[in-house]
Structure formats: structure tokens, C-alpha cells
């Protein structure tokens, strides 16, 4: 089954990306994790996202377009990226989620993926 491993990081964790003292170990941890996914043959795609400060949010309300700097809402945990995996069952997916570096500080959500929409 295909699952999305959705990575939520704390602001402090995300800040490690820009912190020269911590960036090395931050990226090394994610590189090791995504390598492990690939080498175990379970990786099925994914994407890392830049910092939420780079985000712009768009809403259309009553014919008016609203454009906002930053993410949709202020939260303690911010979407950092997503890994797609192909494993036998939820137990296996949770095992991989627990290995994700964000599991220690932020949180990692596991969701079954919807099948692709039919071709029209």
C-alpha cells in the first residue's frame, strides 16, 4: 500500500536549516533517512519544502482574491516535506515514520494515499 509520511517540524527544527552550527547534522539526518527509504526499496517519491517563511497563501472569497504572506495559519508544527512510501501495511509505514528525524521533535503523520484519479 502507498502511504504518505507527512513531516511536521518545529520552528526550532526548521531554523536548523539556516544555522551554520546545526545545518550539517540536520541535512545529514534527512539524507540518511531518505537513503534508507530508497535502499530498502520502499521509496515512492516525495518532496522537501522550503521554509514556511517563503510561502504565499492564496484564497478566493466571494469573488475577492486574498493573498497572504506566509503559511495558512500559525502553528507550532510546520509542514517540512513529504515522503511517499510503498509498504505492506500500516504497521510497516509507522515503523518508517518513527525513523523520520522529525518524529523526535515535531511529529510525523502517516496517511494512506488515494488511488490516482481515473483518466478522463
Amino acid at each position, binding site marked *: 500500500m502507498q502511504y504518505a509520511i507527512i513531516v511536521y517540524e518545529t520552528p526550532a527544527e526548521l531554523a536548523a536549516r539556516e544555522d551554520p552550527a546545526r545545518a550539517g547534522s540536520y541535512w545529514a539526518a534527512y539524507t540518511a533517512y531518505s537513503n534508507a527509504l530508497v*535502499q530498502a526499496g520502499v521509496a515512492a517519491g516525495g518532496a522537501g519544502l522550503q521554509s514556511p517563511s517563503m510561502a504565499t497563501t492564496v484564497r478566493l472569497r466571494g469573488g475577492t482574491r486574498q493573498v497572504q504572506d506566509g503559511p495558512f495559519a500559525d502553528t507550532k508544527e510546520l509542514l517540512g516535506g513529504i515522503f511517499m512510501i510503498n509498504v505492506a501495511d500500516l504497521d510497516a509505514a509507522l515503523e518508517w515514520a518513527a525513523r523520520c528525524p522529525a518524529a523526535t521533535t515535531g511529529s510525523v503523520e502517516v496517511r494512506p494515499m488515494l488511488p490516482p484519479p481515473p483518466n478522463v
Partner: protein
Amino acid sequence: MTTPDGEANREAIHAVELAARTSYGRLVALLAARSRDLSAAEDALSEAFVQALQQWPTQGVPSSPDAWLMSVARRRLLDAQRHDAVQARTLPALTHTQTELLALGSDVPNAERVLPDRRLELLFACAHPAIDVSIRTPLMLQAALGLEAVDIAGVFLTAPATMAQRLVRAKRKIRDAGVPLERPSPEELPARLEAVLEAIYAAFGTGWDAADGSDVLRADLADEAIFLARVVVDALPGEPEAAGLLSLMLYCQSRKAARRSDDGAYVPLSMQRVTDWNTAMIADAESLLLAAARVGRPGRFQLEAAIQSAHIARARSQRQGDRDNGVAIVALYDGLLQFAPTVGALVGRAAAIGEAYGAAAGLQAADEMAGLVDASVLHVYQPWWALRAHLLQRLAHKDASLTHDARTARVRAAGLTQDAAVRAYLLRED
């Protein structure tokens, strides 16, 4: 501001908490002894705890909290079954319950009466062959210790709803299939006891340090597992494997504090400060293992405990290169593999070979595991990668061409760990 009421309230709440911690399994085992209905027993007991929280602060803590809880829970159980019996219009269930209550003795709490301990019987039911292996440990943790499904789910990395559902199903099976809450016959005992011990060990997690940077301590219910093993050892003092399991877990737990530095960093076995080990626990483990060995019936857990004992003796004597001890550890692993040919034991053996006969021999043993263990298991087994990284690193000191392989294995081990401290240790800059 402390009012007398506040004081009494705190005291009462403390008494309820204490009873919940120390007597939960004892009471469930008694309540479900005849009916085999664990869910009903747990429900009745939790209602008794609620009532205790309401009454003890105003009426005082009874002189025998256990007997009080037992009496209330039994009444609740009877009410529930009477209700069910009336609804189903069947009397046998009601008569059955009344017989059961008579068998349990007077309904009037007697402060001096000591409640019989039937927790071992409860554990035997939880690890009955009719119960699926994967749910035995959660079932024990809930029935004997009162752990909530959501907490158990966390330990075993299962969705809480799924765990709750599996627990309900297993309890229904005990009730409906008539799984007895009894000690098995002497002929059956060895095999049945093995199942109980394995289920307890699963709560503990695999506990040895196979190699620097291996992440094998996953379940964090060490104290609970030790508690359950003590229940078994107390009830069956002559069983060497029960003592062996308790000894093994005490050895592992004795080094718990030494596994992390003051700032939370991972400390491999070879670097641990011997003074950080819990000597009382080690002494307890030693005497248990010694007594077990005298019975003359070796087994998996005694051998694992003996391996721990040898590691500790080795580190204590500060003779890291002691070849004799190293060879003895390899022999103990060979013995262990006769009883329990697990991936963990194979990795431990390869690590021991690396210590006794050199890194090249250890690496060869690790690589030979590919022929013994399914690749889909081995290639995601973190301790195997940590061991390979450790051995390759040692070899790379003489043969620089192995540096790349060592690094690859180290990154792989880091990618597979669930432990932030282990990850940081493996990804450290040399």
C-alpha cells in the same frame, strides 16, 4: 493553603493510585478467574476505582484497600451479569456468578484477609496458544498492569484504534473459547512458560548492545517487564528460564543510565563508565543467574543473561583485549543460537567474533548472515548496519579503501534508527 480536607483528599488519591499500581493485576486475575471475562473484570474494577476516588477522601482510606476494591468490583460484576442474564432471560450465567462469588469468600471486606495471587494464571491465559502471538504482550500489559490501549499502541507502534480492537478481540476469545485462567499441567508447563516469558521479554525490547551505535532498545516498558518477570519467578521459583529472563533484564537495565551522557548523547558500551552502572541490580541479576544455572536446565534466557554477565565482567576488569573472555562470549552466542536463532543473536555473535578474533572475522560473520536471514529483514535491521559500520571502520584504519564502505554502512544505520541520540552518534564528524 492546605486544608484538612485537601490533605485527606491527597492521601486518598495517593492510596487509590498505589492500589492501581500494585494490585491491579491481582484483582483482575481474581475477578476473571471463573468467568474468564477480562473485559467485564476490568470494567468492574475501574468502576470500583472510581467509587474509591469518590468515597475514600470523605470516609477515609479503608484498612485493606484491596479487599475494599475487590468487594465493590465483585458487586459491580454481579450487577452487570444479573442485568445481562435478565436481558438474555437466561439464568445459568447468574447462577454461575453466584457460585463464583461464593468460591471467592465472604462479601464483607475483612481487613486481615490476604487476597490470593492468581496473576501467574492470568499471564498463562494471556500467552495461551489460542491467542495470537502479536497480541499476547499487549494483553498482559493491559490485564495484569492496567495499561491503556493508547499507551500500549505507542510502544508497539500500532494505531491506537487497531490496538484497542485487537485487545477486545483477544479478550473475547479468552471468554468465548474458554481459555482457562489456570496453571498448565506439568507436561505442558515448559512450552507454555516459554510463551509467557517471550511475551514479557517483548515488552522489554531486545536489550543487548550488539555493536556501537546499534538501536535495539525500543520498547520502553522495562520496569513493567521486570515487574511481570518477578511475578513469574515468585510463583515458580524452581524454573531456571524465568529466573534467567529476570536476570537478563536486570543486567540490561543496570546499564540504562550509562547509555547516555549527562547531555543526552549516546554512549557505546565500550565507552560507558562502569561507575554509572547500578551495582545492586547487577548483584541481583548475578544471584538469579547463579541459582538458575544450578538447576542444570540451560535455555535461551539463561544464555542471554550469561552473555550480559560476561560483558560486564569484561568491562569491569578493564581488559578490553582479553581474548579468553571474548572467545567465551562467542561460545555463549553459539549456545544461544541453538535455542533461539534470531537475527539479534546472529548480530551479537558476529560482534563477539569481531571482538575475539578481529574485525575481519567479525565482518565475515556479519556478511555470512545474508545466507541465513531474508534480505528484506536483514537490510532494514539497524543493528546489523551499525555492526558492519563499526567493523569496517576498524578495518579502514589499515586499509583506507574501506573508508567509503564504512561510511555508507554508518549512514545506513543512521537512516534506520528511531533514536535521535544514536542517529547523532552515527552521523558525528570524525
